């Protein structure tokens, strides 16, 4: 289930730990004074955090992108929670993000386990699975929109195998449209998650697995008690990244459904675009953007806490 850790690397680790003098020398060699970070931090502040803070300010105004503005307090946020359609967008955001998080991680882990070793064609298969990651999401989504079209290949394929009753207008069905969006998101990102898990699996000591096998642990037992705890750092990274990506999904929805039918696939990200760029409600759009940012921060924080707690338990 895992690859061997290179022996030379292990030896290097042993030497480092066993020789504090060498470690101190290396630390001195690589020591970087803290002030060298100042320009980078200043740039990050100037280009990311200050504009973000200024943008957040407009969330409390009625600015239309031009001319003056009025301070409206939290009324933009109240409007979000009073609007049935916007609440639906919030719900869609959470559903898509959670579905995306679970599916990409389950499929990515399964693929990583399957393509980790013992398979001659594993390098080719890894490349094939990873390939969609390098494609532009908007282009991929347009291709999928042709596949899901009423006269598209999916319905044609169903018809050709006698499943005419399964044919439907996929993107015009409020439920199936969400499924279609999720399918495209998962299809394109599973390869990325697989790579993260492959990196994690490379660190699972084979000796532990062999010891587990000798003690009578089966495949599932070795996976649950040895592999999974060992790759928890990879799980933490993969789930955090997929959660964030799922919460801010935009391209796939715009290309596949445009938020439709009748708002059934609108998310916070697409609402931000619509309210700001289409309707010119920059203040309201900023409020939605701030809400999405806070959501990402909170959920990512919760997820990180959950992973950290498990690490402690697993240690």
């Amino acid at each position, binding site marked *: 289930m895992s690859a061997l850790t290179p022996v030379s690397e292990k030896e290097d680790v042993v030497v480092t730990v066993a020789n504090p003098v060498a470690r101190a020398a290396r630390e001195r060699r690589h020591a970087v004074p803290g002030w060298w970070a100042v*320009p980078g931090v200043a740039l990050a502040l100037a280009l990311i955090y200050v504009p973000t803070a200024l943008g957040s300010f407009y969330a409390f105004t009625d600015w239309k992108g031009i001319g003056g503005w009025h301070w409206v307090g939290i009324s933009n946020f109240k409007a979000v929670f009073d609007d049935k359609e916007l609440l639906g967008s919030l719900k869609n955001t959470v559903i898509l993000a959670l579905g995306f998080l679970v599916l990409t991680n389950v499929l990515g882990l399964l693929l990583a386990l399957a393509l980790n070793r013992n398979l001659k064609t594993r390098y080719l298969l890894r490349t094939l699975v990873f390939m969609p990651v390098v494609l532009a999401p908007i282009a991929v989504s347009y291709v999928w929109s042709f596949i899901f079209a009423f006269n598209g290949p999916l319905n044609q394929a169903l018809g050709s195998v006698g499943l005419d009753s399964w044919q439907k207008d996929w*993107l*015009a069905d409020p439920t199936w449209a969400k499924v279609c969006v999720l399918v495209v998101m998962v299809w394109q990102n599973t390869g990325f998650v697989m790579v993260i898990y492959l990196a994690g699996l490379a660190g699972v000591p084979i000796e532990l697995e062999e010891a587990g096998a000798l003690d009578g642990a089966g495949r599932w037992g070795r996976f649950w008690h040895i592999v999974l705890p060992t790759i928890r750092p990879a799980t933490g990274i993969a789930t955090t990244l997929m959660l964030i990506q799922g919460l801010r999904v935009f391209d796939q929805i715009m290309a596949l459904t445009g938020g439709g039918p009748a708002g059934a696939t609108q998310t916070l990200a697409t609402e931000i675009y*619509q309210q700001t760029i289409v309707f010119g409600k920059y203040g309201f759009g900023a409020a939605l953007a701030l809400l999405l940012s806070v959501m990402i921060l909170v959920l990512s924080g919760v997820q990180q806490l959950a992973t950290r707690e498990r690490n402690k338990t697993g240690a």
Partner: protein
Amino acid sequence: MLKSTWRRLGAFSVLPLVGASLAACGSDSGSGSDSQTITFAYQIANPNAKSVYATLAADYEKTHKGVTIKTNPIALNTYGSTITTQLQAGNGPDVFFINAGGGQAGSVGTLGDAGKLLDLDGKIADGSVPDNAKASMSFDGKIVAVPIYLAPAGIIFSPMAAEKSGFTIDSSTTMDDVIAQCQKVADGGQAVFGLAGSMAPNTGIFTAEVAASTVYGPEPDWNAKKAAGDTSFADSDGWRTALETVKDLYDSKCFQDGAAGAGFDALTNGMGQGQMLGFAAPGGAAKDIMDSTKGAVTLTVQAMPAPAGFDTYLMAGTPDAIAGNAASKHKDLALDFISWMSQPEQTKKAADAAGDIPVGTTSGSGLLPQYAGVADLITNDKIAQYPYLDWPNGEVYNALGTGVTGLLTGQMSVDDVLASLDKAWG
């Protein structure tokens, strides 16, 4: 050592600032470097097609020696936000395309409210702003934009495709006549109408064209009444009929299969393959398509037939206009250019180039050939303005478009759509 390093760092960090300051001093904020140069921005849908605005700018340069007009075509989907940002930043163009009314980003209402538009009162040709367009071209009682053509919106119809199924339509055809022919056309593998059901602008314009006959033809001041609180979408029999008509068409298989989830590509593919007989769009689209096929395809523009009990009106109005930048450094030249564009000779040229009708046209004669089917409606003044020009925001038109999609997919009832329109109006 630390001090010298800080000094070096300080010098490095100051250099870009100095450079930026010098660059700012040297820039001319996009308004041209001398009094005979102005900038002109407009939106384009097809970057490969020559815009009518580029044609006008070139003609003005030819007839006004020494004048240079720097044109700046901007993609249609980002035009509103781009022009808004430029004007807000103080580097907007001297003259620019503007959406009439207050319903969209970068329209007369929003830019006028921000004080960004030149006052055109008394500076443009008499009659260049029709009476029914004055509200959508004005802010605070002053004319601030001028239309350069009248854009009819109807069914872009392919007589060649219709011949195959024997479908007929003219200005006397009612919607019941159309519905009666839909099944026969569908049986022949075609659809009477193409609809991009997932695209709110397409479902919106289709329904607005029906509403031209059911609402705005018989009651041209309906928007004013709504604004005054004297009526509502929910109370409007005309709007109810318009929505019910679209649903009836859908149920009667008048649209192509899968219309509710279709995008614009379904229209181009369907029309290209002769699987659709027509689709709702501004009339200029007929010329664009015919030009792109180099005359291989002949299209006509037909008015959207009226439902039973209503007379057919052609939706025709002035959604596209030109305005001047109130902060322009070359106001006189900008005003002269706008005034020149508002003259009948230029509006005729612009209308022909855009495949539309000159502003102020009251007779069906002299129109482009594709408008032969609506000539009598124009002569008889059976014309209704674009409804959304007087709507207070873009959300109403979006609610109409998405509401119709919801109607087709069964997510919404007619009452739901009417209620959402009232809510979006505010």
